[in-house]
């Protein structure tokens, strides 16, 4: 257990440090709510009185937005954890400490995520439920699977960020690459267009990418759109994505360290 003590300390520091910016925090809750309202407004207008389109009801659409944006608010990944340290050179000192640097990043992100869950997602959820109404989860069992799948979704988002950050070892400034990555995540994960409404060919392409694993899989499980077997299979797919992308990221991380050693920081 002692092995995890420093990571726990990092997580706690991040969690507690967040209370400093109260005003900012309040704004963030409202921001999340507003985004949900925007998409809800758009889809209400698009439905124009129809109760369902292609078997998808308006509350289901609302649920998709609330869950994916809500989870988006919780899933805090610091895209510049490594690039910042590489740019200012502090990565060298980080490597000398007897702890894993990616481990520290996980710890800090997890501390933030916990803070977000309690102080961002919860208030936003309450506000949204009171105003626009979303679907209830498909039973307690499925809800448990949803929670598992949501965690795996965070895992997918995290390993994607981790792997992309490794580009900093070669390019140092990675703002552009990070921004492009985030465009893919936003558009293809279903957080801005429910993937039900994507054209067929797009859905076909998406099957071969990790993006739908981030938010859309948990949403489908929450809504009960998947059978138990399907849900289990999708979770397994999430896990496989995490593993594959992590291996790629870890490969780059090792190569990057070597490069750092060769150049002497």
């Amino acid at each position, binding site marked *: 257990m002692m092995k995890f003590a420093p990571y726990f300390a990092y997580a706690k520091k991040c*969690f*507690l440090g*967040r*209370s*400093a910016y*109260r005003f900012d*925090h309040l704004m963030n809750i409202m921001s999340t709510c507003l985004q949900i309202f925007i998409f809800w407004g758009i889809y209400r207008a698009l439905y124009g009185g129809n109760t369902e389109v292609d078997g998808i009801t308006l509350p289901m659409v609302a649920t998709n937005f609330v869950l994916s944006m809500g989870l988006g608010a919780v899933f805090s990944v610091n895209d510049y954890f490594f690039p910042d340290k590489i740019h200012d050179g502090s990565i060298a000192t980080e490597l000398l400490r007897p702890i894993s640097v990616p481990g520290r990043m996980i710890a800090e992100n997890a501390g933030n995520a916990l803070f977000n869950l309690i*102080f961002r997602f919860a208030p936003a959820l309450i506000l949204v439920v009171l105003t626009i109404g979303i679907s209830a989860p498909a039973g307690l069992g499925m809800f448990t699977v949803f929670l598992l799948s949501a965690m795996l979704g965070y895992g997918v988002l995290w390993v994607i960020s981790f792997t992309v950050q490794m580009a900093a070892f070669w390019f140092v400034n990675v703002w552009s690459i990070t921004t492009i990555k985030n465009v893919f995540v936003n558009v293809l994960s279903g957080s801005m267009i429910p993937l039900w409404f994507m054209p067929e060919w797009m859905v076909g392409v998406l099957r071969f990418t990790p993006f739908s694993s981030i938010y859309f899989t948990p949403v489908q499980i929450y809504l009960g759109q998947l059978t138990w077997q399907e849900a289990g299979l999708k979770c397994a797919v999430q896990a496989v994505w995490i593993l594959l992308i992590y291996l790629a990221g870890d490969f780059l991380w090792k190569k990057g360290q070597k490069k750092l050693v060769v150049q002497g920081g």
Partner: protein
Amino acid sequence: MSFIEVKSVSKTFRINKRKSGVTGMLANLFVPKYEKKEAVKDLDFVIGQGEMVGFIGPNGAGKSTTIKMLSGILFPESGEIRVGGFIPYKQRKAYVGSIGVVFGQKSQLQWDLPVIDSFELLKAIYRVPDETYRKNLSRYTEMLDMGGFLNQPVRQLSLGQRMRADIVAALLHSPKIVFFDEPTIGVDVVGKETIRNFIRELNSQDNVTMLFTTHDMQDIEKTCDRLIIIDKGSKVYDGTLPGIRERYGTTRQLDVEFSGPQEVAPIRHVEIVDLDNNKKRFIFESHEVHINELMNLLLNRYSIRDMNISEPEIESIIRKIYSGEVF
């Protein structure tokens, strides 16, 4: 002639007081507490043209706040500041063209570009005439031995090189006053010496007025004639460096080596400390114990091989002033 004039200046900051732990965080999230901190209170001093003054004090004493007010970054809350006929915070644009500021902790150079590019930018910003620019650049780069790295990106420079480049950057427009805020921090011994020599030369040759903050007493001993010490926002000493020893350095120590192991009977007003190898140290105040009497007493009573008397180091006096022992 007073060139820099600071008259009963005060500045207070409001600080969010955070408690630790989870309950502290919750408290801070919902009912934040603020505390007033007087960074500078009722500060007075006058500096003449061409003077070189060391400005020291412990961390949080208000040095940086004072420098920031003098350079026009901060408005004083009350009191008056005049520098070279200007009111810094009111006549900013006209004033700052005549000063140079070096923040040792904060470079003003373009991180990704060669040093010379930053200099060219500063030339344009300060409207430095070509002639002056060329003259200053060649003179300062030679004095600071910078020719080798003018074309290197700043991010590849050592701390000492970067600091020298930063000093030149602050001087290209030939300022009449220069504020140095810890210009030797993190620089190695040789680099420090170069910087000190440069500063001294600049002061004596160009009659530039300088205010100098540092934590390194050697900086002060080797460059400044005058010293202002502040603590908790107020001035506690203003005078020459030797003056400080006269006023506060009344402690003396006498190190004695005896011929063999020796027990010493207590002496009034003298603290006796055991050192190694038959040596003992006698510490006393020069106004309480007369040095001749103490030495006679020891010579009469014991068999002594060697004696050595010393005055305290400036550094230890200053440390005592900071910790409040002297006042």
